């Protein structure tokens, strides 16, 4: 039937709800280029910290041997989808359309959409819109007065989006780390032991740190990581004078060190140079200050490059709990414990920055090498001048993703 028709209505009725399946390769291109930006509605920071703390507690309590990927599978459960849930979405979203989803091989394989506006027009020509083969072209269905878009193969189906692989995406990782530590300080290299040693040369001692690290991948670019490390560091104040005192030792019931530390006069060699005879019977030696911490870092890792060999930047801070504090005098081959430093704070912090290179050696296993600079604050309570300790560590770890 011919009718005078408003040109707008003609096009609206035909084209407004048109659906044409995109070319197959489009999904491949899109999928590769998705870089999800941080969502506005994110998990609050404290929730993340609490989660990490809870995880830490679990790891410390249960021990490494109880940690297996199967125990943590629940995290991924939301990824799995049922056909019913997908169907629900479609029905909610498109009230105008009749939609059905067939489910074969546990995958959504085809989404057919009926365009209502075309019910009255079953005569859809097969002519090509462009010179090349326009595979998205609409086709007709003569048996029904409805119109289905074809070419369901173009959708990102099983081949493009293999569900099992996606479901296995691992966000957590756990690692055992070891690192040689070089301890030193910024500012003038004064001794943290006592002000009188301010002119003495000082040197850091190399030590080791080791511990467990866990990491959680927030998105493609960012991960948050924490763990527990045991850090032993040492610091040597050189060129000190010491004069052995008379040790009054009771041979029975020894309760402390055989030599009472308070009876060893110790002085800076530099200060005594003006008075060469101040300590006529003294020895030169050094004071070794050894202290150790339980370190709990909290760091953010930003991925610069991905692939088998990945490069990351790491930044964050650590809370350090003092668990070892010794002062040793070393002279002429003997070492004596003279007590502990009173100016070391029980808790202090460090700012951490470094890079992290990952290398995937197996599906869920990778090694990482991470040179880190950790600058301590709040280390000493007094008598330290502008002593600003830091330590450099090259953390090497074996990581397991789960």
């Amino acid at each position, binding site marked *: *039937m*011919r009718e*005078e*028709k*408003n*040109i*707008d209505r*003609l*096009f*609206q009725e*035909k*084209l*407004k*709800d*048109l*659906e*044409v*399946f*995109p*070319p197959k390769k*489009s*999904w491949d*291109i*899109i*999928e590769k*280029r*998705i870089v*999800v*930006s941080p969502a*506005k509605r994110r998990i609050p920071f404290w929730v993340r910290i609490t989660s990490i703390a809870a995880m830490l507690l679990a790891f410390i309590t249960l021990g490494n041997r109880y940690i297996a990927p199967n125990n943590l599978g629940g995290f991924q459960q*939301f*990824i799995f*989808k049922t056909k019913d*849930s*997908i169907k*629900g*979405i479609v029905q909610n*979203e498109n009230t105008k359309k009749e939609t059905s989803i067939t489910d074969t091989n546990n995958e*959504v394989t085809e*989404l057919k959409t009926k365009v209502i506006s075309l019910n*009255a027009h079953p*005569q*859809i*020509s097969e*002519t090509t*819109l*462009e010179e*090349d083969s*326009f595979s*998205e*072209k*609409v086709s007709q269905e003569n048996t029904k007065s409805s119109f289905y878009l074809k070419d369901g193969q173009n*959708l*990102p189906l099983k081949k*493009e*989006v293999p569900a099992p692989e*996606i*479901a296995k995406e691992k966000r957590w990782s756990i690692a055992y780390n070891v690192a040689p530590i070089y301890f030193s300080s910024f500012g003038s290299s004064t001794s943290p032991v006592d002000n009188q040693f301010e002119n003495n040369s000082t040197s850091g001692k190399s030590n080791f740190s080791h511990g467990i690290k866990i990491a959680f991948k927030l*998105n*493609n670019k960012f991960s948050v990581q924490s763990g527990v490390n045991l850090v032993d560091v040492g610091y040597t104040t050189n060129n000190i004078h010491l004069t052995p005192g008379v040790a009054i030792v009771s041979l029975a019931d020894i309760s402390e060190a055989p030599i009472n530390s308070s009876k060893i006069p110790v002085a800076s060699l530099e200060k005594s140079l003006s008075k060469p005879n101040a300590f006529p019977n003294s020895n030169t030696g050094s004071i070794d200050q050894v202290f150790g911490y339980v370190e709990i870092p909290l760091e953010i890792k930003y991925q610069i490059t991905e692939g088998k060999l990945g490069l990351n930047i790491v930044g964050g801070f650590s809370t350090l709990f003092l668990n070892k504090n010794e002062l040793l005098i070393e002279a002429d081959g003997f070492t004596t414990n003279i007590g502990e430093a009173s100016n070391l704070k029980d808790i202090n912090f460090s700012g951490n920055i470094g890079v992290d290179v990952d290398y995937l050696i197996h599906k869920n296993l990778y090694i990482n090498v991470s040179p880190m600079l950790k600058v301590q604050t709040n280390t000493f309570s007094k008598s330290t001048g502008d002593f600003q300790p830091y330590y450099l560590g090259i953390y090497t770890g074996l990581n397991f993703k789960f």
Partner: protein
Amino acid sequence: MSLNKLIKQCALNDKKAQATVYQLYGGKLFALCLKYSNNKQEAQDSFQDGFIIIFNKIGQFNFKGSFEGWMKRIMVNTVLQKYRKKNVLNIVTEDIPDEIIVDVDEEEVSLDMLLKLIQELPERYRMVFNLYVLDGYTHKEISSFLNIAEGTSKSNLSRARFILKEKVESVLSDQISG
């Protein structure tokens, strides 16, 4: 799984959720791009770029209003950005009546033909016709999108209608005579 949950999963870069959203809306959005473009390749480029933006920004969707509408706006904006980059010259305002009536037998008008006619429109006309007629934007909105005067938008629309009418009638008369 609800649509909201699906969107949240996409924001977490869940590939399966992204594929589902693509399956659900890819057809509509690709059709939109076809209408705004003058060939398949151009439509495909816009579609891909637009969908990448959708997934990258999906975390910014505030769950107020229609998700489909939000995606369509991104897609239209992607198309328009490409169009603006081409820096098309303004088309001279012409005085043409608003209502264009075409004498047509609906059953003779195929979907592909109408799509082809739209794609063949000069670019400025195609943009205005799509935005106004098919996607319901006002001339005021269109004028800001395309950086033209409202009057220009109106005259471009009239011109687009006029051309389409001529072409529809021409195609139909060819069919009849053929």
